[in-house]
């Protein structure tokens, strides 16, 4: 549907609009973006729009079937769990825990990563090699093991495990940012900045960061998908969120005992975690291919 162009005017669109055009062209990525924004909205608005109080136990409505099966009630669309709490509002509230906390973890990890990555990237010689080796160490410890150690020291709890995941994601970020910074430092326009007398900080602020923030977002999306999976896994193992909180991983672990009576109690949180991670991955992939396509032409 090429626009009819009467006058032959110059059309140099900024890199961002080009990126958006490439991104728009991939339908899967757009679908991912829609799902991602749905989850984002759910995370922010969950406390307001949940039909029932997620922690209100209703003793005479135990293990109600979801509304689409015959004995289900319509005001409990997804039925209730074995303590009589409405499953749908627990799932919505769960979005704030699993999705929301994952976002917070990735942002924290990103900021720390930028700080450390910049230090590692800008410094040369011994200092940068020290940074790399310390990160290689952090990279060797699997995230679950890190979580176990932190839980052992601080005790289980949602916020303790976010520390564990943040530390687990950090090495990926710092490695990625350090490589990105060192690549941009090789560019000529950085040398030009230096010649104009820019200090390290100005080079970082004006030359390097604006050029790598797209790469950062792609890394952030990849990290977000691992963060969601890790939070759900830690919740499932009982190291992360504790019993009454309605984090998705914990809900699957609770519903495990009713695997025959209420299979939907396991299926629903699982589908939501899967959808959240899929949306993040679709957006991440879409961004990556858009950047590649933009670089090609």
């Amino acid at each position: 549907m090429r626009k009819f162009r009467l006058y032959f005017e110059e059309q140099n669109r900024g890199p961002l609009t080009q990126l958006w055009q490439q991104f728009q062209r991939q339908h899967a990525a757009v679908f991912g973006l829609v799902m991602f924004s749905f989850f984002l909205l759910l995370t922010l608005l969950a406390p307001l729009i949940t039909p029932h109080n997620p922690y209100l136990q209703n003793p005479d409505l135990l293990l109600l079937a979801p509304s689409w099966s015959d004995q289900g009630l319509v005001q409990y669309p997804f039925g209730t769990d074995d303590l009589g709490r409405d499953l749908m509002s627990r799932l919505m509230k769960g979005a704030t825990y699993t999705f929301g906390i994952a976002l917070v973890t990735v942002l924290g990890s990103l900021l720390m990563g930028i700080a450390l990555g910049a230090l590692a990237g800008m410094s040369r010689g011994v200092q940068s090699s020290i940074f790399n080796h310390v990160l290689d160490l952090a990279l060797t410890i699997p995230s679950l093991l890190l979580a176990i150690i932190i839980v052992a020291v601080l005790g289980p709890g949602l916020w303790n495990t976010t520390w564990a995941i943040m530390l687990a994601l950090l090495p990926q970020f710092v490695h990625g940012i350090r490589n990105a910074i060192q690549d941009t430092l090789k560019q000529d326009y950085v040398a030009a900045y230096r010649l104009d007398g820019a200090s390290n900080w100005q080079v970082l602020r004006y030359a390097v960061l604006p050029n790598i923030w797209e790469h950062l977002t792609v890394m952030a999306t990849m990290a977000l998908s691992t963060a969601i999976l890790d939070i759900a896994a830690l919740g499932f193992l009982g190291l992360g969120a504790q019993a009454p909180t309605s984090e998705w991983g914990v809900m699957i672990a609770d519903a495990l005992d009713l695997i025959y009576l209420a299979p939907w109690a396991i299926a629903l949180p699982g589908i939501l975690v899967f959808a959240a991670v899929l949306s993040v991955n679709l957006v991440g992939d879409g961004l990556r291919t858009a950047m590649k396509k933009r670089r090609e032409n």
Partner: protein
Amino acid sequence: MIKALLSLMVPCGSVLILSACQPDIPETIQQGMVYCAEGSPESFNPQRVTSGTTIDAISQQLYDRLLDIDPATGELLSALATDWRLSEDGKTYWFTLRPQVQFHHTGFFSPTRAFNANDVTFTFNRILQSDHPYHGVGGGNYPYFQSVDWGSLVQAVVAENSNTVRFELTRPDSSFLSNLATDFASILSAEYAAALLQQGTPELLDQRPIGTGPFFFKEYKKDQFIRYYRHPEYWRGKTELTQLVFDLVPDNAKRMAKLLTHECDVVAYPRNAELKLITERPDVEVQSQTSMNVGFWAFNTKKPPFDNVLVRKALAYAINKDAILDAVYFGYADKAKTLLPPTSWAFYHDLPEQQYDPVKAKELLAQAGYPQGFRMDIWAMPVQRLYNPNALKMAELMQADLAKIGVRASVVSFEWNSFRRKLSEYEHDSVLIGWAADNADPDNFFRPLLSCSAAESGSNRANWCDPNFDNLINQALLTADIKQRRSFYLTAQLYIDEQMPLVSIAHSKRFQAKSVKVTGVTINPYGGISMAAARKSL
């Protein structure tokens, strides 16, 4: 490349299909049976434990006792002791022992002589004499015997000749015989103990057991399985099963899954929620048995604010027992009024029922000086037992009930063995646990749970030591006349209701799910299950 891939897939596929048919598997496997237990045993010597999980796994399989209990009537039957005589003043007992009873022949020890009197004296002197070489081995605590204050009861155990033993007591005790019939009083091998002492590894007596029971110990992989082989010269006759494996599966859903995929033949404590589902399946059946047990919520009476009776009564009023019965027991249990189950002959029928009344609870709290409530933790045991199928779920329910009266409760749980260790050191505020009877005697409920000697040995969950409660249950033991003992127990139950050291919640039926191919496995209402008569058809 793709061709190479395909050529790799074909052999793997065929191997899988081949697995469907079972060619000639040797006898030890075909006649082997798998019992899925809900937790790992703490030790292989019943004297040293009270937890039902361990008793189920070891006592009836490896050992025999002097006397046994008839599951139907609760009467005492002769086992290793063919018959027994009581002196007139009721203070000395004579037991004549069964001849030609062989101990186990295993890889690590083979006995030279049959069972005789010094095995009995060794088993009980180990508990009584603190200077006995084996007394201190492995920590030196014998919770059940200490809780029933056996040390001050039994003066001496003497072997008059090779097959008669004499017990001298300090005072007449009507529950002595039933205590000898409990699983804790299993007979060990003196010869094996002497051999281990010589080797200098006495603690192996409790880790690699030797007994006279139907199976002998082959192998134990911690938290995985215990493997028993058949004891060929068992005195009641060789069992049908050649191999018995206790598969340790703490997770209830996994245990149920293993039953449905026939990886387990018998499963302990199936989840109450799934009982309906199992009865519909043709290949699996459920056995149920009303058994003497009680699930309760005990407060640590030494820790403020639980040392105040008003607070304990308020918490009792705040709990909605009917909701718990529906959500946790799924209606397979009856509401408990007092510690004793209704089936016990000393049950107090017209004791007033504990009502669910949050308003009164708030008043009591205000009276006790806590108008805006306080913070406490509820310890929920992670393992599923017959008296409490899902303590974590029950704790969550109570958490919501307590929140209504302003009490902020948090749920705490650890792995089963460290959970019990921390409980016996009274680190808890309150705990959801329970007790299953080992014999028909009501004293088996009061003494191990609420007596002062139980408080020292760590098995009194309420940490409650009340002198006049103690002398009530002691007097009950002195007379043998049933009517008089019942009157003491009635006043004892009334006293517990006033002091409320613990809130009894429910008496649950005991369930066991097994595959239809397995026969001869019955639930023993008192103490551990026995696999001696089990048979597995193909």
